[in-house]
């Protein structure tokens, strides 16, 4: 259900090591909760962010919520496609629906986040 090549936060973001650069998005669970995504506000490229900082927002037909930085680092790229095709987040949350990329990230910080098994247990707890 949850890919095991990414790490997860309690705010339902995921982060993947893509050869030194890190890709960030929101999880299938978050997407399921939000429903059809209609808008994504992404951080500025070059912004230095700290762990837990609200760096963007995601809106669905039903609701709006903040997107947080899973770890500290610098935003190196954003997914421009989401501006016109926010539905990519629904269709492929761990692939084409990514939000932004980060550099200057400490790998040790990433590994402190939840792995797939831990996140799955966390989500189950949320649902009960």
């Amino acid at each position, binding site marked *: 259900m949850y890919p095991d090549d990414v790490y997860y936060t309690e705010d339902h973001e995921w982060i993947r090591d893509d050869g030194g650069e890190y890709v960030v998005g929101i999880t299938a669970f978050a997407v399921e909760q939000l429903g059809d995504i*209609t*808008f994504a506000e992404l951080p500025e490229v070059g912004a230095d962010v700290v762990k837990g900082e609200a760096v963007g927002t995601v809106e669905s037909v039903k609701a709006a919520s903040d997107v947080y930085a899973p770890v500290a680092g610098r935003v190196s790229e954003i997914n421009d496609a989401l501006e016109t095709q926010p539905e990519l987040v629904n269709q492929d949350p761990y692939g084409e629906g990514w939000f932004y990329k980060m550099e200057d990230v400490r790998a040790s910080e990433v590994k402190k986040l939840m792995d797939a098994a831990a996140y799955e247990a966390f989500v189950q707890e949320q649902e009960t």
Partner: protein
Amino acid sequence: MRKTPLYDEHLSANAKMTEFSGWAMPIQYAGILAEHSHTRSAVSVFDCSHMGEFRLRGAAAAAQFNTLIASDIESLRVGRGRYGALLTENATIIDDVITFRLAEDEWMVVTNAGPLDRVGEVILDQTPDAEDISGETAKIDVQGPGAREAMIQVGFDLAEKLPYFAAQGTTWQGSSVIVARAGYTGELGFELYIPIALAEPLWQAFCALDTVAPAGLGARDTLRLEMGYPLSGQDFDGSRTPLEAGQNRFIAWDTSFRGRDALVAKRESNDYDLLVGIQTGSRRAPRHDFEVYYDDTPVGHVTSGAYGPSVGHGIGLAYVPKALSEAGTQLTVGPRRLEVEVVSLPFYSHGTCRT
């Protein structure tokens, strides 16, 4: 939570269920955007069995009920319906209702689920020979440009000629059905008032058609919002008058009704809030309860807001002072001061409801 007679149908269609006014209702099946778009281009069926229905018999009942609402239902021709607001002494809206005159001496009043207890009290206490038929009545709405064909395919030939805001009795599989044509989506639409036992077979008969898919409360909300139709309990919640709710054209000033004096006083003060349409310049949406600002001054509240799938940007309804209600007025909303413009309603003007 109460369940409609279509509860099992919703579960077997994998609907996501939610609580709405004490009822377990489907919020979505395939997804709000897909259902919204399907309603604008084909046909959707909505379970509206949670809504309330009352039957009035006789001229005395109609005359009495006419004093409780701001519109005039006594002057309705047989077979026609009219929208109107049920008022308190202070002219605040208890609920908005549609009243159909089914026969010379018979009317049916259709109310929302939210304020149903309060509405029932008002109608039953104050109207002789009024009967609450909500418990024995299910309601299926068939909405979309292909609704007429779908109705005929299922066996309702009267859909061919039924005019807008009309209602007529018929039978389906031997049971009595009232078919009305009002709608809440902006598209051509028929509403079927049926005995509980008919709900499942009729729902299945529609869903068996290629053009028809079920739609939930989520799509119903974005569809009605694009038309600028207020939702009872959300866009007026007991403290607003029909003047403020933008219902001037549904007020029969020349009739006598409860709350009329208060309403006249409000009109003559020429100083009240108005429910207006607001629109963003992006996909970002205003949201329910957002504060509205003019320059930096708080001037009102957003009561409904969402991304409008058929208009392609954020839309909403908000109460603002009359002086700020002109189309073109620039306002901001919410903690992040999202820029919005006051626009005339509806947001979406390509609907097929009158075709």
